[in-house]
């Protein structure tokens, strides 16, 4: 197992880092020459070069961070609401849970296409509804207007991944002790107070884990953006940027530099999370 993991994870990663220090191109990987930090940052003839000077790269960093911040917050909020509703004893609950699982089971590409169709500027249902309700005066180009594109990506992502959040939180809610709630009811405490004083503190560890997982996953987003808003720097994420350099522009060195930067960003976040979560886990082990 370790050998397999080394072969498919550690080795390619090491090669990527190496490529990022060379001038490799996709057509001829073997001819790569070592160029040091040139792909990251270089100063030549009075001008700066490299990924770190590329405004498109910084744009993609900004896009990714906004995307992560907004969509993970929305997913957490909506996921929590969904989990609480799923916890309540209502008729047809299995049916509701099945409906909630649906977006999760759908391939991301399919959901990207579906939202592309719903948000279509001329024939999309969303524009049609908004027009007939009178909220907008003319059709909006959700997937082409620079101001709206990131919003469209976020909507599609929230739809797709809220179920994941809801299920994790539901699992946490199921483990809560009942006697606290009984006591609270006997004392006649308002349900909202109960939620903020009992439920929320108790599921906090699970909530943090779920948020971190989603955030790390959202940081590397690629497929949704690639399909829903192709080739637009207004929504380009760090992964999309790196792949474009690597494959479309065939510049393996430069693209590898970008992916290495993304890798270290995520590694840093993961390490921080592990260090912060250690005290809570130490209690259990």
């Amino acid at each position: 197992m370790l050998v397999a993991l080394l072969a498919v994870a550690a080795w390619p990663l090491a090669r990527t880092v190496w490529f990022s220090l060379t001038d490799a191109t996709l057509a001829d990987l073997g001819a790569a020459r070592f160029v040091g930090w040139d792909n990251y940052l270089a100063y030549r003839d009075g001008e700066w070069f490299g990924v770190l000077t590329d405004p498109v790269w910084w744009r993609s960093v900004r896009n990714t961070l906004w995307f992560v911040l907004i969509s993970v917050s929305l997913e957490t909020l909506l996921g929590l609401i969904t989990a609480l509703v799923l916890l309540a004893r209502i008729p047809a609950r299995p049916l509701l849970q099945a409906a909630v699982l649906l977006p999760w089971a759908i391939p991301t590409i399919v959901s990207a296409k579906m939202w592309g169709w719903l948000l279509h500027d001329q024939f999309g249902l969303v524009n049609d509804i908004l027009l007939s309700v009178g909220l907008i005066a003319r059709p909006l180009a959700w997937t082409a207007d620079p101001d709206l594109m990131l919003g469209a990506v976020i909507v599609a992502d929230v739809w797709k991944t809220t179920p994941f959040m809801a299920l994790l939180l539901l699992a946490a809610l199921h483990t809560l002790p009942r006697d606290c709630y009984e006591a609270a009811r006997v004392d006649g405490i308002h349900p909202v107070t109960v939620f903020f004083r009992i439920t929320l503190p108790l599921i906090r560890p699970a909530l943090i884990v779920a948020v971190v997982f989603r955030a790390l996953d959202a940081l590397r987003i690629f497929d949704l953006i690639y399909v829903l808003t192709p080739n637009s720097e207004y929504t380009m994420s760090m992964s999309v940027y790196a792949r474009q350099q690597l494959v479309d522009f065939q510049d393996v060195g430069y693209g590898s530099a970008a992916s290495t930067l993304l890798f270290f960003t995520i590694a840093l976040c993961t390490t921080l999370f592990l260090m912060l979560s250690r005290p809570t886990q130490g209690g259990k082990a």
Partner: protein
Amino acid sequence: MSRGLSRAGLYLLAGIIALAAAFPFYYAAITSLKSGDALFSMDLLPRQWHWDNYVAIFAQQPFATTIVNSFWVATGVVSVSLMLGLSAAYALSRNRFRGRRLLMMTILGVSMFPQVAVLSGMFELIRWLGLYNRIGGLMLSYLIITLPFTVWVLATFMRRLPREVEEAAIMDGAGPLTIIWRIFLPPLMPAMFSTGLLAFIAAWNEFLFALTFTLTHEQRTVPVAIALLSGASEYELPWGHIMAASVTVTVPAVVLVLIFQRRIVSGLAAGTGT
């Protein structure tokens, strides 16, 4: 009175959630049954049932081959991950050695890898092995996605199993393989099943590697084929075909998910240690 009101509110909320979750897929299914100009009218109920789009994707595109490819890739990845994952989980959950915690954390870390970070290295590896544009290359690269997660979940489940039976087996002189096969596997079957299912869905849905490591129609997997479906001209997107293809590949996944709801929920929960 206020109780009744809050009940009503709860039902309303449940209704909204169900609608929001299911509607986009319903609308895609409706669209896939329309043909010609009807595609651009926004009916919420199907007025006629046209199967033209479904016929078209199988007749005009090698969509059947694509589905078979996806199926083989996912099945292969699941079998390899489960086999490797089981033995690794055994070693990790039963032997106490130095750095075990670190190793577990590394494995969890790998599952958070941005795929694009290994893209160029993986590309080189796959070309070197002669697997470029072959589904074998995809199987190999998908291990990076499914393996860490399989090990993690199986180790979590395995730690919950009692040690006594295993110790008795060791006393009777059973080797590690016998122990895994005869002692662990039977109670672990549900866990194996849910992990396998999750790994299958992950492999079925993967896009970045599939897009980069395949070149021709005949080797593509489902997500790539759908993403690259194009119309007669550059400016015409065949929405009917896209929706038909989407529904075709989603229905099996949805059926699986609906049948095995409970197992998926427990697998997901174990996967994140909650």
